[in-house]
């Protein structure tokens, strides 16, 4: 997955492109025009002679030096002014480009997910349609005498339907792999990348406090999946602030986390990573905080959001053997912890090829 380019430098060609030919035409014309007008004015008022007279009118060399210095500093100011303006504009433009790219990248991710949802819905429909085919042909076949043509025909119907079911399964596997939801990643860099993305599109009223442990650690979620998890939680934190200024604190550290029922496949994992996302939003009551991961549960007004974000997040984390730790207080904010078990570094980061 391509990473967002840092500090996109404003080259001559891109400056031309961004400001447009019309602007440059005007700028060049203005320069030539202003120069001519200024020259005309100076000549008209015999500026050169006036200056010469002034220098001849007194014996003080220092005054002449000061006059030259003033002239020189005016010229220097013009250059420096131009330089400062260019630098400021360059910075503003590159920030805007970054923001747009981040937006596009998030949109692309969401489109892939939407496509996955579409495929999933199609698979659901197809499975539904195949159920009567298999159920009823098997039912009739059980009523037929064996080794009759009817029984044979019905058996063929059944086999064909089962092949269709297998195809649907394959399609689903392919769709998941294509979305980049399979695989593993290094949790530190992936988290940092996701946070950077979120920061670019978050409103400026939200301040981010980050504390990310850089020790290399691998978890069983793909980079894309982790991005979704973190973006979902940050989005929720931002929404909880309801436009008011606030702070989102994100901490990532390795922890040793041992509970009796932390056995996955019979092996207790004591090496975990904890990603903590604390916000100063409006907070939640106990009932609400218990239900946040349910599909379609949402406290937002109708029409905003699908209510699916957090349940998706839950599914991703649970699949990787992780868990959540949710604390919240109304009027204070929420503290959501994601715990993910570390996996062995022996695996490569690439998902299996289909």
């Amino acid at each position: 997955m391509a990473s967002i380019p840092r500090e996109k430098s404003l080259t001559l060609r891109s400056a031309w492109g961004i400001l447009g030919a019309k602007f440059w035409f005007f700028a060049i014309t203005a320069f030539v025009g202003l120069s001519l007008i200024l020259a005309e004015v100076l000549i008209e008022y015999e500026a050169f002679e006036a200056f010469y007279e002034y220098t001849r009118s007194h014996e003080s060399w220092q005054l002449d030096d000061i006059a030259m210095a003033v002239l020189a500093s005016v010229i220097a100011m013009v250059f420096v002014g131009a330089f400062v303006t260019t630098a400021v504009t360059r910075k503003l433009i590159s920030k805007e480009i970054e923001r747009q790219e981040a937006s596009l990248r998030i949109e692309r991710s969401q489109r892939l997910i939407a496509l996955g949802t579409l495929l999933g819905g199609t698979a659901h429909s197809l499975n539904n349609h195949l159920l009567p085919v298999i159920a009823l042909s098997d039912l009739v076949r059980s009523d037929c005498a064996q080794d009759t043509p009817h029984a044979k025909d019905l058996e063929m119907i059944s086999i064909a339907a089962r092949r269709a079911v297998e195809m649907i399964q394959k399609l689903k596997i392919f769709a998941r792999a294509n979305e980049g939801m399979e695989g593993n990643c290094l949790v530190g860099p992936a988290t940092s990348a996701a946070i950077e993305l979120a920061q670019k599109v978050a409103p400026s009223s939200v301040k981010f406090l980050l504390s990310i442990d850089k020790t290399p650690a691998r978890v069983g979620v793909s980079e894309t999946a982790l991005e979704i998890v973190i973006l979902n939680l940050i989005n929720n934190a931002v929404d909880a602030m309801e436009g008011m200024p606030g702070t989102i604190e994100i901490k990532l550290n390795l922890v040793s986390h041992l509970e009796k029922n932390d056995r996955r496949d019979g092996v207790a994992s004591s090496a975990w990573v904890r990603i903590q996302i604390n916000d100063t939003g409006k907070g939640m009551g106990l009932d609400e905080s218990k239900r946040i991961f349910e599909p379609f549960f949402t406290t937002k007004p109708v029409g905003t959001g699908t209510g699916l974000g957090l349940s998706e997040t839950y599914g991703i984390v649970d699949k990787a053997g992780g868990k959540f730790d949710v604390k919240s207080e109304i009027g204070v904010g929420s503290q959501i912890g994601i715990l993910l078990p570390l996996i062995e570094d022996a695996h490569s980061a690439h998902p299996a090829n289909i």
Partner: protein
Amino acid sequence: MAKILLVDDDELVRYALTRVLTGAGHQVEVAENGLKASLQFKLSPPDLVLTDVVMPDQDGLELLREISELNSQIPVVVMTGGGEIVGQDYLLFADRLGASAIIAKPFENSVLLSKIDGLLKKPPAIP
């Protein structure tokens, strides 16, 4: 021989499963969504509920929650279309909400019937 409440929004699925269940000697009542199912559940409690998970107008999960809130001992078998929204796991929630069994469509008739028989034989769990 039991009274089964079958809940699914697909009419052909309702037809097919009704045929399979009655063929095995059960009595079947149908509902096309969770809302109607919960009404029927209260009016005429079945011995077992067989429900699809994703349906408009109150889906299977909400029905499950209602039933578990009623502290009912009636077993609920949840059917999944296998195409649940990518990244989410309805199965997880069905499990947490107290589904007695989960079965993925399309399934073998024999698998469905033996699961149902197994659940009907079980004595009610000690609360």
